[in-house]
């Protein structure tokens, strides 16, 4: 193989790749953010559980795992938004989210995008209806489980009965009575079996994805065990052990309950700690994309479309093109002016350059 870079003229010498001058400061900032968020959560747990009076010590491992989770998410998030590409788009996204002018122009845009993009995840339907359905099951199941588990482990929710063993219960949040219910009626049953319902939603969804990872050759291509398979296995183990706890208490009179409880706890704790560093990070990463969508949407509303300088076809919105060029300059990618041309024109320009300057016989 020839090595043309060795005989380049000085002005054609390769650009030095961007160095890592800010790496230490990013790490320090991320550590600080992680520590601050963890500390805030600890304070919130102490205050929310009325100085630990409502805190259930049996759930301590879960609460500790959520503190680690808070540290990991804040750390990883800070590192992520410090990279040039993410930083610029994140700032523009946040700017669009909190822009009063945008709100006046399109007041329904943000809630509509949040509902269709984050809630209904319509974009997944465009990829595959089966994947959309399976992901919806996992999404709503996990959301339900998190909404129940997190406040319970933090001592924010309590269920108390004046008669000791029910069936009348009071649900309290931060010590304040929110509602009273009978555990034997439908509302009470749903309330006490919320986590079972979540598990029933998650198991088929995660199983479908696991089956797909075994059978679909597109999904198998380049898949990694820790990144692609482990999260699904974690979800299934958590859900199955959770259901087995209910099975044990109803049908086995508590047989094997302690072992199952430990198994369930270990699987939940390990998953929570793993969450910021693997595939699950998309859960906290994805909402930022709504800002990006809004950033593009509002520019399109203002008809700020950037057209290819050669063929006139739209490339993207003007502010977006400027933002991308800024990112490329940050990264010392010195060909940012090429962004002003659409992908096809870039290829044609390169083809013409090859035709006229490299191999004339090509014609």
């Amino acid at each position, binding site marked *: 193989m020839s090595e043309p*870079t060795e005989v380049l003229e000085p002005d054609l010498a390769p650009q030095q790749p961007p160095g890592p001058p800010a790496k230490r400061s990013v790490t320090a900032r991320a550590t600080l953010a992680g520590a601050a968020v963890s500390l805030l959560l600890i304070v919130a747990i102490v205050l929310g559980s009325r100085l630990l009076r409502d805190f259930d010590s049996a759930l301590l491992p879960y609460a500790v795992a959520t503190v680690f989770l808070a540290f990991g998410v804040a750390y990883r998030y800070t590192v992520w938004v410090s990279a040039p*590409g993410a930083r610029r*788009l994140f700032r523009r996204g946040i700017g669009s989210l909190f822009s009063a002018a945008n709100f006046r122009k399109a007041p329904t845009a943000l809630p509509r995008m949040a509902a269709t993009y984050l809630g209904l995840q319509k974009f997944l339907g465009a990829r595959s209806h089966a994947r959309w359905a399976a992901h919806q099951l996992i999404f709503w199941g996990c959301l339900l489980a998190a909404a129940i588990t997190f406040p319970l482990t933090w001592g924010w929710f309590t269920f108390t009965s004046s008669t000791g063993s029910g069936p009348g219960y009071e649900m309290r949040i931060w010590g304040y009575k929110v509602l009273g219910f009978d555990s034997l009626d439908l509302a009470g049953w749903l309330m006490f079996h919320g986590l079972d319902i979540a598990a029933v939603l998650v198991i088929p969804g995660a199983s479908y994805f696991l089956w797909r990872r075994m059978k679909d*050759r*597109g999904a198998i291509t380049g898949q990694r065990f820790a990144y692609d398979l482990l999260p699904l296995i974690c979800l299934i183990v958590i859900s199955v052990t959770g259901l087995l706890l209910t099975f044990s208490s109803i049908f086995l009179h508590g047989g094997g309950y302690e072992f199952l409880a430990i198994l369930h706890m270990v699987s939940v704790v390990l998953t929570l700690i793993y969450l910021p560093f693997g595939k699950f990070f998309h859960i906290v990463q994805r909402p930022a994309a709504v800002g990006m969508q809004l950033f593009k949407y509002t520019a399109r509303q203002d008809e700020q479309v950037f057209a290819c300088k050669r063929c006139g076809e739209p490339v*993207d919105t003007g502010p977006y093109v400027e933002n991308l060029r800024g990112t490329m300059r940050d990264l010392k*990618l010195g060909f940012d002016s090429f962004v002003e041309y659409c992908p096809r024109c870039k290829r044609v*320009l390169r083809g013409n350059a090859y035709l006229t*300057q490299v191999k004339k016989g090509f014609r």
Partner: protein
Amino acid sequence: MMGRTIFIDPGRCIGCQACVSACRECDSHRGKSMIHLDYTDTGRSVASLPTVCMHCEDPVAPCAEVCPADAILVTADGVVQQADTSRCIGCANCVNACPFGVPKIDLQAKLQMKCNLCYDRTAYGLAPMCATVCPTGALFYGTLEELQAERPGVQVADSFAFGDVVVSTGVAMVVPADKVRWPVPGGLPVVEVNGVDVR
């Protein structure tokens, strides 16, 4: 430069679109072709140019560098993979930053897709679909030694100039022997717009 890679010789391309059809059969993006076949001077020339992902090595994958979601993975063997489906947010940064005009985007699915050198095949030593079916050898998959054994004296270049910037790639292009010492011009600075010389 990877050991085994694609060598593109536009001089041999007859624009038959066999590569485009075969690319659709790739398991990692079934039904969608990721290779581009462009007719560079329509109406005046039959010249055509097949474009696969060049798998940029220096700077490493500009598409991955500009990605705000860390969705594009470069595997240890230098293959720039298509976007991770769980991370890609469909922002099109990669589409517009790529100097070769390679990545495609599905705006409805909010997903980038691109040539991944048929990783489901090349990971097991098989040639990519496009190179397998190309009837003229415009797309050749193998080592440089294998190419030169088949085509004695052939020279290739794996660096491209975009203005002042030189991009080294994992995929190479066939060039005449007297041009091998310089990077292949990438089309920047632009010298013509709509047939008008803008130099």
